[in-house]
């Protein structure tokens, strides 16, 4: 791999990494919603 290919690969990998990090954060938020819904269900029943 020459330096041009390495830099291009780095740019695309940064994009993928940021996208995955975003999805990870959103999945954590979704897990919190599930816990809150369970809490609500427990209070209602």
């Amino acid at each position: 791999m020459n330096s041009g290919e390495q830099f291009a690969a780095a740019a695309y990998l940064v994009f993928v990494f940021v996208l995955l990090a975003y999805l990870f954060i959103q999945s954590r938020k979704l897990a919190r919603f599930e816990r809150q819904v369970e809490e609500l269900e427990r209070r209602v029943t």
Partner: protein
Amino acid sequence: MRASAATRRASAAVVLLTLALALALEWVPNDADQGFSQRIFYLHVPVALTAYACFVTAAWKALRLLTTDLERYDVESAVAVHIGTIFGALTLVTGSIWARVSWGVWWTWSENQLVLFLVIFLFYSAYFMLRQSVPAGRRQARLCAVFALFGVVLIPVSFLAIRLAANFIHPVVITQHGPQMASSMLLAFALSLAGMLALASVLYTFEVGGKLLDRRLRSLLEVTA
């Protein structure tokens, strides 16, 4: 937003971005001047244009908030700024990598386009500081809306800066005479841009849905406490 519409858009984003990536890395010819590294263009420019689109969306939603006073527009404007800031950060990082391989430096202060984009990015980063520093409510929503509306003024300045500059090293490929690139390059670029816009739209839809759900859940928990 119905789940099926969001799912269709998510599928479109995956297909378009996969196709664009395959074309950009395998199909389009190497640039005569920059060689393989020019392929960063198919990532960097669509990401930058998507950031602009997000900031314009944020301003539109902010305007809707100021005219209707509906709380939903505050959430939509804030999420658009959030997604735009992420794409803005990606623009700066991918641009910096491209600058390093093309110009030999990670950053140069002599380029109006770069500095103006950094100013836009910092301006919208400050949006979150404003949001956190004011208690949640109508005042916060209206202050943030005015901030988001002011920010959008910077976008045409940034977009035109490179075209107004007399001396520049930052390349211009889409001029008033049309795109200055081969048709294969234009196709890869168009697919990448469409994919990026679809991706941003999906992230926006899910994040807005998540934030509205969060508010409803919190109020329900307070009521049932």
